[in-house]
């Protein structure tokens, strides 16, 4: 699974929480800038909510069918690790 394809239709919403400036969220921010356009391009109708708040731990939530939510912690991870974590989350 990669970001250059449409995700499974079971995936209903992605929510990325991170800090605007915090060092712990640096990888997540980098992930957003590099991958968000691609995700949006292949999944134009999937909400990818980016919700920033200062000092908040970086996390990503995925909501699947019937309101099932899963999330992973992304604090202090590099952009690459963030990517692999997100891929496993979305694939699960």
């Amino acid at each position, binding site marked *: 699974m990669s970001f250059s394809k449409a995700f499974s239709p079971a995936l209903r919403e992605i929510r990325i929480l991170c800090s605007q400036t915090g060092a712990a969220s640096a990888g997540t*921010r980098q992930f957003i800038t590099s991958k*968000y*356009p*691609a995700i949006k391009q292949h999944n134009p109708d999937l909400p990818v909510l980016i919700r920033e708040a200062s000092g908040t731990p970086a996390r990503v939530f995925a909501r699947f069918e019937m*309101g099932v939510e899963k999330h992973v912690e992304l604090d202090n991870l590099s952009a690459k690790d963030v990517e692999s974590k997100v891929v496993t989350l979305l694939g699960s």
Partner: protein
Amino acid sequence: MLRIVASASRPSSVSLLSVAHRRNLSSTSARQADITLTVDGKEVTVPQGSALIQACEAAGSPIPRFCYHDRLAIAGNCRMCLVEVARSPKPVASCAAPAMPGAVVFTNTPLVHEAREGVMEFLLSNHPLDCPICDQGGECDLQDQSIRYGSDRTRFHEIAGKRAVSNKDLGPIVKTSMNRCIQCTRCVRFANEVAGVEDLGTTGRGNDLQIGMYVEKMMDSELSGNVIDLCPVGALTSKPYAMQARPWELKTTESVDVLDALGSNIRVDSRGVQVMRVQPRTNDNVNEEWISDKTRYAYDGLRFQRLTTPLIKGPDNRFVTASWPDALAAIAAGLNQTGAKGNEIKAIAGHLADTETLVVLKDLINRLGSDNLASDLEGKYGNAPPVHGIDVRSNYSFNSTIAGVESADAILLVGTNPRHEAAVLNSRIRKSWLHTDLVVGMVGTRADTTYGFEHLGEDAKALEKFLSGKVKGEFAERWAQAKRPLIMVGSSMAEHADGEAVFGMLARYVAATGERIVREDWNGFNVLQRVASRPALYETGFVPSRAATSTTPKFIFLLNADEVDPASIPADAFVVYQGHHGDRGAALADVCLPGCAYTEKSSTWVNTEGRSQLGRAAVPPPGAAREDWKIVRALSEVLGVDLPYEDLVGVRDRMWAISPSLVRWDGLEGTSLEVAKAGLGSLMSNFYQTDVVSRASVTMAQCTRAFVTREKTSLEGLGKEPLQAHA
């Protein structure tokens, strides 16, 4: 004191732009070095240019005053603030005198006491002794200060009796009793500077000075209620509140207004179970200390047309009162009977839905397998995801912040009339327009804004023409040079056929101008929301999915949705309405659930900037009405859906997991530059992929990649993908 606005009469035409630089005799001076002076033997340091009264306040010496007000121009005509300054032969009016370095000021000497007593004697000589029947009683500056500074007897006897002044008719809000007026002219200054009603003024002089419009005229302003707070005596009082209560009977509750999307800070005064009045609370970041008349006077609507018990529509189409368990069971039965599955279960959120309930309802609908989370936008626009998207907060928020409007040097209004959508914000623009060189341009329906603007056209074409630089004129010139240009898009653009084009156009323009409009220290792209619930709706992701848009709903849950188009509700659908007023939404419903109005629940509201604020319950809900999120939570239990929270703390934990800024009350979380840019990028409508066919097309996807996102993908990858797709 009327000089200030005299050079800038009420503008409604273009030509006034050209006098922008001489709107005011004085403009706000740059902040200068601090100076030090001595007040009552205490050294105090204040910025140069402060009034003496501010220095005295800073030193902790209270100065009585009637005419002086922090947010208005200085008049210096009540003389109540006299203080003694060393080496000055006479007492000095401290509001009109600048604080000078090294000055030695006394506020508590026999000379000062005598001067204040004299002033008070003059004021009272013509003031009627009707305190027992005056509405200002108990919160009257004249009453309070005469107790403290006045004399116990008067030496002044007028044979003809006290001065009599005829009352003025200022409309349905401001009640006048002009005999009580002490000519402080606060109302005149407010009307001229802040509200933009330049008809209110003074006539005559000395003892004959009168406040009024000269000709009989109403005070046509949506901020007129503020003169009642400003009036230090009972000359201007509130008509709806007349003879209703005394201030010492009232319980005050600090809360937040929800009748527009500004989130003005209010104080709800209640007696027993009734809201008696609503007053502003100072918050310099939001509403300063003004509120609009709708905020202030709509509260009597909280007493009428209320839903007080659950209602179930009987077979003869009449509502029958029911108990809570019956009503919830009826909903469960209705859901079963319609057989609604997946996106056929629809929720529509209205204007006054609070954040907690939105979160709980979204979880409930999601867990029922549906993504059909609509809102009551104009027409059918609420049934589809909003054109500005909700991925990035800065795409639907007022990013420059409300206070930041004052630092803008050019404002472009697109499809909005801030005077009606956010009256208090409009007064900020007027303030800035009066005191700085601000220029305003408008695309959209021409409106009376209380400041001068250049009308650039009515439609998207006019906007395109302006953005492409084909418009000549003073505004275009000044816009091009502006350091802090501000674009304000009305939320109604998301409910307009041209909405997508307008947002796309603006996003491309912002990107093309590079650092000019969106940069690290300034985000000049703003969406002005006009409905209290919408920012929270978008923040929590309460929007329908694309697939849900085309589904015909069988079960509809209306949460405070009263602006919904009845034609959009299928006749055979089972409709539940939850809200506090029996209006359009309740009329459509099969089951009505009575909820709380904003003065009856402690809930979170997100304003147009994205600032979340906590409203507090001032009075209990009427009858069997319950707090809204609890109703949805109870319903989930009846429907057999397990929601992972049982108390308010749990709901707020959930809000924290959705967006941490929702529970950072009163704070403002900005959007970082990269994310804001990514958000704007998603607004640029993509020529190659606009419908289902072109989105499914691999070739169009490649074109998008090459020409729109300009991704550097290897050519091999490009070649392989279509093959895989065909295989």
